[in-house]
């Protein structure tokens, strides 16, 4: 049953060293505030699972928190490379990281299988693609009716999933709208789920019946952190800070510039700072 608490408590109570953890959100609603809190709390030896590691994992990898990365697109979307992740993979700085790489279809199906309580996912994938040769977790199964060979990969079942959502109601049900991505699957696939939200409302009386709602009994903790997805966005609240994504390319290119930035904007900052970072991105209407 969802517990309302501070982000610091939510992270401290649900994320431990050595956990496999998914901070999900597909370009939208990326839970940056939660990741920053995990960085401040100094978690380490994490297996970081994310379809698109994005800046959120570039920061965590750059801070040396990751033992392993499970991903399908290691880029800064529309900008280029993730330079802290590159530094870790190419140079082992600040530490070596294991890599388990999939396609988007693979990751999406693996989360889906995790949410569905299955041990593995089946899909038509990886045909002729090099990943099958370098990832031992890509196997195949034959259709017992047609004989067709299909790709099989293990279900993703993280210890913890963090997501950012638009709203919770007082009972702790959570609403996700817009690009809903993989959030529902990540929450349902994980043993524990922590949600940061833009706001807490009395009830969801006017919400469409088929919206993506996570009932309170699927969530361990909820913390209200307005702006908590910045520099990604929250549909209906503020726009994506594309300029910040462009700027990150320069910050992450240099180890010292990165450390200075992390010190200023993460280590010495607090969840409450996120609200100010999105104020210029809120729509006037």
């Amino acid at each position, binding site marked *: 049953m969802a517990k309302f608490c501070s982000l610091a408590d939510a992270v401290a109570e649900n994320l431990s060293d050595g956990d496999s953890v998914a901070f999900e959100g597909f370009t939208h609603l990326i839970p940056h505030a939660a990741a920053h809190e995990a960085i401040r709390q100094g978690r380490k030896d994490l297996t970081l699972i994310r379809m698109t590691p994005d800046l959120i994992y570039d920061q965590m990898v750059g801070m040396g928190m990751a033992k392993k990365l499970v*991903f399908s697109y290691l880029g800064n*979307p529309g900008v280029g490379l993730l330079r802290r992740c590159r530094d870790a993979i190419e140079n082992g700085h600040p530490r070596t990281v294991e890599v388990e790489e999939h*396609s988007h279809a693979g990751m999406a199906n693996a989360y889906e299988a995790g949410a569905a309580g299955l041990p593995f996912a089946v*899909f038509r994938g990886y045909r002729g*693609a090099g990943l099958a040769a370098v990832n031992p977790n890509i196997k195949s199964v034959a259709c017992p009716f047609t004989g067709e060979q299909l790709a099989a990969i293990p279900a993703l079942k993280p210890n913890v999933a963090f997501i950012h959502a638009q709203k919770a109601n007082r009972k702790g049900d959570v609403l996700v709208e817009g*690009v809903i991505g*993989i959030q529902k699957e990540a929450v349902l696939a994980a043993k524990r789920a922590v949600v940061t939200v833009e706001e807490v409302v009395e009830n969801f009386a006017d919400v469409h019946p088929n919206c993506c709602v996570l009932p309170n009994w699927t969530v361990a903790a909820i913390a209200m952190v307005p702006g908590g997805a910045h520099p990604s966005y929250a549909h209906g609240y503020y726009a994506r800070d594309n*300029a910040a994504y462009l700027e990150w390319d320069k910050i992450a290119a240099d180890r010292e510039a990165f450390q200075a*930035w992390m010190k200023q904007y993460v280590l010495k900052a607090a969840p409450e700072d996120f609200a100010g970072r999105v104020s210029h991105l809120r729509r006037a209407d």
Partner: protein
Amino acid sequence: MSDPGFTPDEMMTIAAARALRNDDVCFVGIGAPSAACNVARLTHAPDITLIYESGTIGTAPDVLPLSIGDGELCETAVTTVSVPEMFRYWLQGGRITVGFLGAAQLDRFGNINTTVIGDYDSPKTRLPGGGGAPEIASSCGEVFITMKQSLRAMVEKIDFFTSFGHGVGGDAREKLGITTKGPTLLVTDLAVWKPDPRTKKFTVVSLHPGVTRDQVQATCGWQVAFAETLEETPPPTERELTTLRDLKARTEAAHRGEKAEAGAGGA
């Protein structure tokens, strides 16, 4: 050569846009493909369905998205579905007529590498990886590729098979049980290429205005084949060029403008 009134980049985007049909359902890769697809939508293919892997179906953005999940894609879409649904029902379900991809490295058979330069386990350069591309390449009815030519990008042998084109050529796709056509078009900043019907090697079928065979070969790492009857790509029309430039201008203004000058917080 006098100024033709458009850049090679613009010619590339517009030539790529022309290949799309009004009734296509197109899975749009980010970057050059996104510009081409939206120019098509804003010119000759107003009813084209553009799909981004974030789950937005039938989207019509006013500015080009920086990511494949920008807010405007959802706001203008016919519907927005979850990512598993996107990959299961829409891509794997065989409903996409064209997948439009870019490439970091490409070989003559349309095989693409966006994963690593060098060895996979200790790469010289770790690139972003495949994202949706491995299954876009196998599940879409056909695949269009667009990229700028360079010796680094168009190579004899790619370092990693991120997505499968025609493999070693011929019937390599059929042999793997892939039933879709694979790459049927490559549009670069210099030329339009199509696979040879038998060998599946990309062959230049049309040179962009003012471009020579030598220029194409000089920026391509494999021995270029030219079609017997080589055409000249029609230059951009006024409407095409205006549409593309307006789109780019709106996009740049939007992407820069979102960072407040005096904002205290960084990323």
